[in-house]
């Protein structure tokens, strides 16, 4: 009779659940199993020293300080928008690289590569959708991030310069999205970019329809601020190639460099802002 296993009654189980003991019991069962102990050589002791090391000795996490102000955890304070913007940027990098495997920025091919991506490439449509929606969402989240930073007065000393970097990043976010807008090479793309770049005709001094252009030699529809952007006097194949290079190489590199400075300055300026 002594070897008979004890059958727990409902009341005991409920008491275990209520007290949380059931979770520690379950965890113990897992972490003491042969599979677990053979896979992980040692446990993780939740000590202050280990908490610090988790951040400081991890290449991905050491972007963080090891300790932050309590208020920096509050979503009501941060809106989480800066982090979400960065995450969406990373999503566009991953999906964008995949799209680059299938897309050629050539007038004859670009549109048909889009069709190929959408109808023949496995998960091509999904990759394209994620790239586009992440890019649009990024525009919105970066605006909201900026609005939050303004409302909390976080641009005030000592963070003035990081606000300036942030304004550059907002601008580059819009330029990234705008240069990507042309790449599908459909009617929507061509005419949106035509409308957008037509503005450059009106550049004072440097646009062929702008004020005072008559005093600048050589300014003509073929050689002005707009044609430098487009590589010609209209949105044609040279513009497609130019926007592709700007979109995939130049702007991401510059924006990435500025992001590094932006994140670095957050820490150097004493972590995210808060009441003194």
């Amino acid at each position, binding site marked *: 009779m002594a070897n008979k296993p004890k059958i727990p009654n409902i009341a005991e189980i409920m008491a275990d659940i209520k007290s949380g003991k059931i979770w520690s019991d379950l965890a113990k069962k897992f972490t003491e199993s042969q599979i677990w102990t053979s896979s992980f050589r040692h446990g993780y002791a939740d000590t202050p020293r280990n908490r610090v090391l988790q951040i400081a000795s991890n290449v991905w996490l050491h972007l963080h300080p090891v300790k932050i102000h309590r208020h920096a955890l509050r979503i009501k304070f941060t809106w989480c928008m800066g982090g979400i913007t960065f995450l969406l940027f990373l999503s566009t990098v991953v999906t964008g690289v995949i799209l680059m495997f299938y897309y050629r920025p050539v007038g004859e091919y670009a549109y048909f590569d889009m069709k190929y991506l959408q109808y023949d490439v496995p998960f091509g449509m999904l990759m394209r959708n994620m790239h586009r929606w992440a890019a649009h969402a990024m525009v919105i989240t970066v605006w909201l991030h900026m609005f939050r930073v303004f409302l909390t007065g976080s641009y005030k000393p000592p963070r003035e310069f990081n606000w300036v970097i942030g304004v550059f990043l907002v601008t580059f976010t819009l330029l990234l999205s705008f240069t990507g807008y042309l790449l599908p090479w459909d009617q929507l793309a061509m005419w949106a970019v035509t409308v957008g770049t037509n503005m*450059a005709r009106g550049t004072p001094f440097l646009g062929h329809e702008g004020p005072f252009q008559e005093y600048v030699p050589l300014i003509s529809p073929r050689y002005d601020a707009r044609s430098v952007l487009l590589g010609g006097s209209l949105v044609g194949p040279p513009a497609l190639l130019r926007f592709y290079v700007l979109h995939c190489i130049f702007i991401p590199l510059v924006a990435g460099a500025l992001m590094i400075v932006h994140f670095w300055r957050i820490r150097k300026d004493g972590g995210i802002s808060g009441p003194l």
Partner: protein
Amino acid sequence: MATAVKKKTAEDLPEKVHVWPYLVRLEFLCALIVIVGLTVWSIVVDAPLEEAANPTKTPNPSKAPWYFLGLQDILVYFDPWFAGVVAPVLIIVGLMLIPYLDVNPKGNGYYTYAERKLAIWVYSFGFIVLWIALIIMGVFLRGPGWNLFMPWQYWDPHKVVALVNVDLPYAFGFRDYWNSAMFGGAVVLGYFGLGTAGYMFLERKAIKSVGILRMLLKINLMLIMMGIVIKIVLRLAFNIKYVLVTPWFNI
């Protein structure tokens, strides 16, 4: 027996917390929600792809990407050199100057309206009205010919709109070029001159502590921003096209 747990108060909590696990788990959760949301959205809604680009077939209306539609809408009221070039440059430079122009030491790192009313009003007005509202209008209410259509109206490409706009000097009875230009120039210079002078006079006590360059930049950027609104009102309410007409540029 349950013992009464002392309720934790803010003073009992340490001021600083470890990033691992408190921040990292929040970031992880947030990233998870965003990525799941993005994936579901991307499965459900397809990105648009219209017919192949055709330089001989201009759609009506031709719209810039949605985030630039605020600027495109300002084209109704201003020429391209301002709406498409000078205004965006001023927006970017003006935003960069904010920390150097706003010298109010209060409200650094916390939400407050009472301690910085003007700053919050100016930024919110620029962001919500001049940027977001114009974008919404550009996306949903602008149809063929960039005419205004209510959401329930048919986008009629042949909608007749009376061209009754006149320049401000004309409305005041000036008919010849030089008098018109002098009048228009006087209005523009007077707006900026009187606006600046009035502000400097009202805030004369602050000149010493804030600095004259800072105050000049601040008031003129704000006058330009208000000028855009004034121009919109002049056009919509009084059918005024330009205030100043010159051979080189029009305002």
